[in-house]
């Protein structure tokens, strides 16, 4: 792991959930051909991952990491593209890229660092904040219901849908490895407590459980995804690989680039 972590000063809050994700990611990458891995990150606390890991990285714009990552893969299919994005990136600003990436089965892995809050901009509600969330811009409590990302991704056509927890890096490491080796759009939702603005450690530690049976049917996966609606603070939270299917990837189906004889194209225009 030493050669994968850069000596850059780490500015995450002590105890931040991102440390768990960093450890898991570094662990997973250390078992891959590091030269072929590209980390594409969004903007937010999670994005700093690009500055902390000594691997190829594309520190993208807010919300655009999935679009950029899809482009990296279209540019060179030999690369293993891992997008690290926040809930702000994936579920608000860039939700279109998430949905369409899943639908068209871009062969990339998306890890969502979901802490249910915009942290770097100092505590505002996101699309996965529970109703009633008192943020700096919703002092009387958010009036909006959260989305359920797993349900959304199952319906959008993601060919690999999983959930893990930053407090269980071993579990997350396995999921990242599985996600990267899956040929298609791999979606990994990671529950990540924000120690500063939305500390969910205790609650998660009590409620998360690893599913005994993974790789469910679509029907069962949807049912399982609905066990927790991101609002209820009592429900149990299943972790693991909910769903996986083999489906032809985008890159395999659209034509590749090769030599083009411009002269012969020109002749046809006469």
């Amino acid at each position: 792991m030493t050669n994968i972590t850069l000596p850059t000063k780490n500015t995450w809050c002590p105890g931040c959930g991102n440390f768990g994700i960093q450890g898991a990611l570094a662990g997973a990458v250390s078992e891959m051909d590091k030269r072929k891995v590209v980390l594409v990150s969004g903007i937010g606390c999670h994005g700093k991952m690009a500055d902390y890991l000594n691997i190829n990285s594309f520190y993208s714009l807010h919300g655009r990491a999935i679009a950029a990552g899809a482009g990296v893969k279209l540019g060179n299919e030999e690369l293993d593209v891992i997008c690290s994005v926040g809930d702000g990136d994936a579920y608000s600003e860039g939700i279109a890229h998430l949905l369409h990436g899943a639908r068209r089965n871009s062969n990339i892995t998306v890890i969502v660092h979901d802490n249910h809050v915009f942290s770097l901009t100092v505590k505002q509600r996101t699309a996965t904040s529970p109703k009633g969330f008192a943020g700096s811009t919703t002092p009387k409590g958010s009036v909006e219901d959260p989305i359920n990302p797993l349900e959304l991704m199952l319906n959008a056509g993601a060919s690999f849908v999983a959930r893990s927890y930053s407090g269980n890096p071993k579990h997350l490491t396995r999921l990242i490895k599985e996600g990267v080796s899956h040929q298609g759009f791999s979606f990994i939702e990671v529950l990540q407590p924000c120690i500063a603005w939305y500390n969910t450690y205790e609650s998660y530690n009590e409620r998360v459980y690893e599913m005994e049976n993974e790789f469910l049917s679509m029907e069962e996966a949807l049912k399982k995804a609905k066990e927790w609606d991101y609002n209820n603070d009592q429900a149990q939270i299943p972790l693991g690989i909910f769903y996986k299917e083999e489906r032809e990837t985008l890159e395999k189906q659209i034509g590749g680039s090769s030599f083009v004889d411009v002269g012969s194209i020109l002749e046809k225009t006469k």
Partner: protein
Amino acid sequence: MQIIVAGAAGQGSKKAGLLIGKLFNHYGYKIFIHEDYESVIKGGHNFSQISVSKEEGSAISERVDYLLALNKEAIEKHIPKLKKGGVLLYDDQIEGLEESIFPKGVDKESAPLKSFVEKAEGIDLMKNTALVAAFAKMAGLEWEEVKKVLERELPVKTEKNLEVAGLAFEGMEKRGEVEKLSEEPSYLLSGNQAVALGALQAGLENYYAYPMTPSTGVLRFLSGIDGVRTFQPESEIAVINSALGSAYAGKRTMIGTSGGGFALMTEGISFSAQAEIPLLITLSQRMGPATGVPTYTAQADLSFALSSGHGDMVRLIAAPGDTKEAYLLSGKCMNMAWKYQLPAILLLDKELAENTYSTKRDFHIEKEEAVIGEESEDYLRYEGEDISPVCFPGGEATVKVSGYEHDKKGIATENAEEIKEMHEKRLRKYEKLKNEVESLSEAVKVHKEGETTVVFWGSSKGAVLEATKEMDVGVLQILFMQPLPEERIKEALKGKEKIICVETNATGQLANLLSCAGVKVSEKVLKYDGRPFTVEELKRRLEVSK
């Protein structure tokens, strides 16, 4: 010779116009086809105006020699444009024409298009084939030559189309003569095709776009070519961010759009400049603001392009005036984007993007390699005084790019010294680029010398050159807008009495740009009704201004 072919959308007047263009091209003439269509699928009114000449040119006239009409509206709209002695050829099924609309001296000839089609048991759409053949006979083309061209150009239902054409040709009277020239046929290209081909010759591998008139033709054209990876994602925002990803991975990537889509891309343009990822962007302008007039032209996005993207950022902007320049500049800009690692914007407009031009390829364009870095474990992406040698991910070098201000490795920084140094590195790179642009023969073109000088940019080229042919004025074309070749422009305009800017926009955006460079424009000849200048109109207006 100027010919208008007109009808409702869906009647195939555009195809008929192109066929007529191809016929005269086959005879060795130079062709220019101006397309005018409304934003509808069926109905509405479309026309193509074909100009046929022994010399190259890309302008349309107010007055035409032939009007070929597929419906009543086509006649009513265009009959005033017919010259004395001009010929109206129309479908004999058109009813209810008022005699009073016809100017004196107009020659009317109806053709039983429907019966030609019915006799051959063809479909109604083939009336346009019948119209082309009827016209060809009247104009004086030979059947053998017409047949050769139609056979090649009508790959679907060829036999049936030829039968219809044969009957129409047979059924009409010959009136004129057309000399077959010894010239070889030219390449007939739209600006969209020219841009695609120029980029291909400079190493284009991937092209991404979201459909938007008038730029969609590039995606349509390239998606039909094996060997080009084309991708149509969910939005222009996805287009530019995916393209940045592919370019980072080492693929020469181009994207295309029009004003509204370009607006969505601007954050990505800023990223391209900051992360130093090369990108070629074709911006085909149409009439704005907002949705504006989607299928009509304007040169009104120059100011926007010049300042597109937030922050103090560097970019390259060029504006070709015809397909030959579009071909050349597309290739050049692709090479320069990769050499200087920045966004390059190619400004077209609806006229250049979609009109068809006889195009000479008498220049050489090939892929010029970027400055490539050495693969090693301690590779630093942003090292160096100005241009940093680039490596791509997948090898020994760890390649880190970032939209944050960054250090040499590509790690985000808030250090005052480093921030200043990175800014200056990019600006030094831009200085180098500016020097290269100043030295490019294509950057500025003096078409003619004169005390009063007409300055223009983009697709007004054809009309300006034609209108000023016999006028005692100088003509200057500016092809690079950023960096602006100021020295060259000042030299060309030194001591000129009067400078007149010709532009198809409402505020004189080139004139504004020139005034920033210290060049005072005395008069502006502007047009902002969505239509290009005709030769006659521009002549009249220049006579008043000069």
